[in-house]
């Protein structure tokens, strides 16, 4: 499992970003090993089609899960085709907070019924 989280900064203590494709950083965490990788989102300033391009980047980085506040239509198609599970968190907090919510099973998977706790 490799979880991607849009972030306003390079650390897990930075705020969870409320945008997916245009977040300045994407932080990737592998819970099994505890490995954390921070990826600067060079696509964030693109003129269009940013969502699908970020999905392409996630695929190249072996991401399997994504926590995001909301997802645009084009990105959603790409995430579904790539087999990446999307978990929606609309709350505010840090990247760590988002990961805690996910691990506690409190987030709803996109296209599925709410996670049973």
């Amino acid at each position: 499992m490799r979880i991607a989280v849009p972030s306003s900064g390079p650390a897990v203590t930075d705020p969870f970003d409320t945008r997916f494709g245009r977040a300045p950083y994407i932080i990737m965490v592998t819970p099994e090993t505890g490995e954390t990788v921070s990826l600067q989102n060079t696509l964030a300033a693109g003129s269009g089609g940013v969502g699908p391009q970020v999905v392409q980047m996630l695929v190249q980085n072996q991401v399997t899960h994504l926590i995001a506040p909301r997802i645009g239509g084009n990105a959603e198609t790409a995430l579904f085709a790539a087999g990446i599970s999307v978990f929606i968190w609309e709350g505010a907090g840090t990247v760590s907070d988002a990961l805690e919510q996910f691990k506690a099973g409190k987030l709803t998977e996109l296209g599925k019924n709410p996670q049973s706790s």
Partner: protein
Amino acid sequence: MQIAIASGKGGTGKTTVTVNLALALSSSIQVTLADCDVEEPNLHLFFSGQAEEEEVTVLVPEIDTGTCILCGKCGQFCRYGALIVLKDQVLQYPKLCHSCGGCSMVCPTGSISERSEVVGVLHRSNPEPSLRLITGTLCEGSIHTTTVIRAVRNQFNPEDLVLLDAPPGTACAAMETLEGCDFCLLVTEPTPFGLHDLTLIYKLAQLYHIPVGVVINRSDTTDSIVEFFCRDQNIPILMHIPFDRTIALQQGSGQIISRADPKWREQFFKLGQDCITLAGVR
């Protein structure tokens, strides 16, 4: 000769001026009327007659999945996200494609060919004996505004007198319409918003070295707001259209005021002559 009717601000009366100008001039000259507001064309509402259609197309990639090795080069190249290379497939978003053709050039296996995608429609009709109407209509959701405007422009003959109804604003679509025109008639209203956007479209016309004239629509007691600017910039004011209920009612019900009223026909004919004269000064 090409005369654009533009405004910067929307809703100032471009269409009113354009249809009246076209009708008045076509009484003695062959006129081509071009609706370049392809996102919301409306000139056809004022004329009847059967139109012939022609599709406007662009080229988008088509991938041969048999020979594609999923190397990812096309997906890396496309800055618009129209091609997304995943582990087991290439996802395509034709609506995001800008038709640059780069993906087929970077593909190492020659797996990308190009196919046509419809982005708009041209309508051609002859609603009056000496009037030809060309309307460009962009397909809903398409980004190819300028492509459709260019397709409208490609219908002109060099000897034609063409009136181009420009889209509002000063972005790409307005630029595509203005470029190459001999004169630009700026329709404005005497309000602070009208003046603000008149200033913007005037700057755009200057950028292309196109001579301009102004029509003040909904002319009322506040005309001085525009008149001061025009005097300052040495822009001729060629017509005032009063803020008048009868005009609004006629226009709103799809009638053309110079068809019913010979006085207006005369005034618009003179406006057309003024435009042609001022264009010649160039």
